[in-house]
């Protein structure tokens, strides 16, 4: 039985965490399948990715029945979560987390590693870690700190407060909230929009923003110059300019 389901609609790849009876909690097996799915999504025919959960939850985080088994939590993180979080960042196309329900612990970290988050009004955001004596992992301290700023991130992660979708929206953690029934449709619509955009330029924009976190202005300007040189050689740039001059809508191919 697959713990991760992959579907394709046009240029949109949807990756669904699928252990609905366990609230899609992460296991080693699910991580391996997720890693394969993220690797497959490098396919240039894929121009936008949606990550969501099957059933009522998005992802409850680590399956705690498995966590103690290896005895070495650090090694488990390095072998399972880290490659997947890095794979999301390395994917040079938008990755949209469509948060359909409970989003807790490492599931929250994973959602926050994505480029865009939208949520169902039934979603809830729960730090989880502090409630069981752990620290936020799987990039939680990195992404949540970036998204919310240090004061709010610290208060939230250490208080372990449960956040509704509306509160998450007010904080800027998610960019929009839709009714539960409408979420899948809205995610598909949003992904289809991004899939029609100039994918290489969007992928390079993602790289540039990630780079900006640790770069100086000089370094950032230099990388912009290098990547703009690449973008200016793309078919999408030629199409964009031609469409502008001909006063029509551009048809980007992602090349």
């Amino acid at each position, binding site marked *: 039985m697959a713990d991760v389901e992959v579907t394709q609609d046009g240029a949109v790849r949807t990756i669904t965490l699928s252990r609905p009876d366990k609230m899609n909690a992460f296991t080693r097996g699910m991580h391996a399948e997720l890693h394969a799915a993220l690797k497959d999504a490098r396919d240039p025919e894929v121009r936008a990715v949606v990550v969501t959960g099957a059933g009522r939850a998005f992802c409850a985080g680590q399956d705690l029945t498995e966590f103690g088994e290896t005895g070495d939590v650090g090694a488990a993180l390095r072998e399972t979560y880290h490659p997947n979080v890095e794979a999301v960042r390395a994917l040079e196309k938008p990755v949209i987390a469509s948060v359909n329900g409970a989003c807790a612990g490492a599931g929250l970290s994973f959602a926050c590693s994505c480029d865009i988050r939208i949520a169902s009004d039934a979603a809830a955001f729960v730090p989880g870690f502090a409630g069981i004596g752990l620290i936020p992992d799987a990039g939680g301290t990195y992404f949540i700190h970036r998204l919310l700023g240090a004061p709010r991130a610290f208060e939230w992660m250490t208080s372990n407060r449960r956040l509704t979708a509306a509160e998450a929206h007010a904080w800027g953690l998610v960019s929009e909230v839709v009714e539960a029934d409408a979420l899948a449709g809205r995610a598909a619509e949003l992904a289809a929009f991004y899939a029609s955009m100039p994918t290489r330029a969007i992928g390079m924009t993602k790289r540039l923003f990630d780079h900006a976190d640790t770069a100086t202005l000089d370094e950032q300007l230099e*990388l912009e110059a*290098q*990547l703009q*040189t*690449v973008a200016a050689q793309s078919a999408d740039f030629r199409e964009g300019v031609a469409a502008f001059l001909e006063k029509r809508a551009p048809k980007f191919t992602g090349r």
Partner: protein
Amino acid sequence: MSEEELVRVERDGHVAVALLNRPKQLNALSGELMGALLETLRALDEDVEVRAIVLGGNERAFAAGADIQELAAGTPISLYQNRRIDAWDAIRAVRTPLVAAVSGFCLGGGCELAMLCDLVVASETARFGQPEINLGVLPGAGGTQRLTRAVGKAVAMDMILTGRMLTAREALAVGLVARVVAREAWLTEAKRVAAEIAAKSPVSVRLAKEAVDAAFEVPLSAGVELERRAFYLARASEDATEGLTAFVEKRKPEFRGR
């Protein structure tokens, strides 16, 4: 240009680009490949029109290391007698500035080869390492010496004793590489650096390269003395007169290598 050439050479003005071309073996440095490279570098170094050389591999690998099969087939005596590693010393004698353009794997002999160049321009994807310890041996083409001089004992020991690879940004932070550039730009940026060097006076560039290299060979007082003499020598060149005059006249100098 034939696909079978082990080293592909391109020219662009005063810049020559030499690319290692054993892609299937990730540019493993076989005796044959090193022979072809040394011959190429020797010829380019003799050509006065060449003022800077870019040495690169391909996007996946600068060079992933020595040719393991050759090493496995060799005996201590055969390795000593065929002087295959000794031949690498010829690269140190190249007077033309060498810019290593590194994308992908730069491991073992590949890392040692990059360190023999004058400076390294690395793609953000580059990985540097001396993983020989994993094979029960150790770096044999200068790695223990040049890496230690480049990055200091702490990082050198970490890399050489554990085989740990450095990312391009780590390599930049510890001083192993001079610039890290976008993945797509590894070769164009290396060429740009080479072209900048090629636009200077080849007389002063070569004297400066020699003086910097001396910093790793001689005591400080001797190095400073060598530098001073190199400075006076450079001043005696027509290019220095041109450079100083152009500065005063607020125009761009035209260096002719005299």
